[in-house]
């Protein structure tokens, strides 16, 4: 009883704060000075039509490197925690996988993977980017695992793809120090024609590495969660 009272008091207190915030919310009509700089100079300085991408990959590229590092840490901690030590047994299926999901997975898995690659290669032109594309690739693996519960994702290929793309991401950044303005500067490669796929310097390259890395890390996490199901609980 007293516990419920405290919970309701805390939630109601936060709700009261939110109500004042809500009534005092003023519509903004102009951009902040920082955003104005990105909006007016972004096309000339970075050359990517998608301003969110130019902020994420170039203006705040260091943040993105940290973000990728955190995702890598999560993947390694999860695989450390869910390490399989005990005797494995096959999963006893309650029933067979349905015909619909089997057929659909055969048809859809390649298409979903191609969509993921499309989303991360076009990250500087359209909404999307490395993280979104990587997540789409991981959903293809989810579909594969749902259709074939005994499917094993090849850990060797995944770890090779992940480490190669991670090292290449950092190397592109270091080339930025040597050849252009600083770490992760995208002018390592020529800026090209505005709005074309091979433009915006190193952004398509960096986002492809990020996409491959995120896709392989998420698939690794998924395969760890799948593997522990076989352990005796």
């Amino acid at each position, binding site marked *: 009883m007293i516990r*419920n009272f405290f*919970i309701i008091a*805390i*939630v109601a207190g*936060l*709700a009261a704060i*939110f109500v004042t*915030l*809500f009534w005092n*919310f003023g*519509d*903004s*009509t*102009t*951009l*902040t000075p*920082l*955003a*104005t700089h*990105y*909006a*007016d100079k*972004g*096309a000339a300085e970075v050359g990517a*039509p*998608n*301003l*969110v991408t130019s*902020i*994420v990959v170039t203006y*705040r590229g260091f*943040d*993105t490197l940290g*973000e990728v590092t*955190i*995702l890598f*840490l*999560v993947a390694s*901690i*999860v695989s450390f*925690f*869910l390490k399989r030590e005990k005797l494995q047994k096959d999963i006893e299926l309650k029933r067979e996988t349905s015909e619909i999901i089997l057929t659909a997975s055969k048809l859809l898995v390649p298409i979903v993977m191609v969509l993921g690659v499309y989303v991360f290669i076009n990250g500087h032109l*359209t*909404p999307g*980017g490395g*993280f979104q594309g990587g997540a789409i690739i991981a959903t293809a693996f989810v579909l594969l695992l749902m259709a074939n519960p005994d499917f094993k994702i090849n850990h060797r290929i995944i770890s090779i793809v992940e480490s190669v793309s991670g090292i290449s991401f950092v190397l592109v950044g270091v080339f930025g120090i040597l050849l252009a303005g600083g770490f992760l500067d995208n002018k390592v490669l020529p800026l090209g024609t*505005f709005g074309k796929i091979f433009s915006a310097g190193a952004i398509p390259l960096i986002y492809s590495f990020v996409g491959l890395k*995120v896709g392989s890390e998420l698939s690794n*996490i998924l395969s*760890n*969660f799948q593997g*522990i199901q076989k*352990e005796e*609980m």
Partner: protein
Amino acid sequence: MEIIALITGFSLILIGLYGILSKRNIIKIIVGFSLFDTGLHVLIVTVGYIKGGTAPILDSVVGTTDVASKIVDPVPQALVLTAIVIGLGVTALMLAYALKMYQAKKSLDISDFKDMKW
């Protein structure tokens, strides 16, 4: 438009907090954390909304001149992109811990885990 987004964000945060505080099942607590996260993301994107602005993509409609008067603020959107990825990582870690806790005590009830409580 921003009123709907504000109400959605604030209610998602409150629902998430209520779930975190009141539920006993660890999985439900994790769902509460995810709801809280989502509400915060909606709120941060709403703060960057400019009345009448369009998406910050310089296509044929926006053009490349006088961009600042036509688009919404791209900075909160970039920050939310980072926050979504971190939220995903935190959720994956919490689920892994929940699995290990279930293996240790065969229970997902939070009140069965009193070892670190004083």
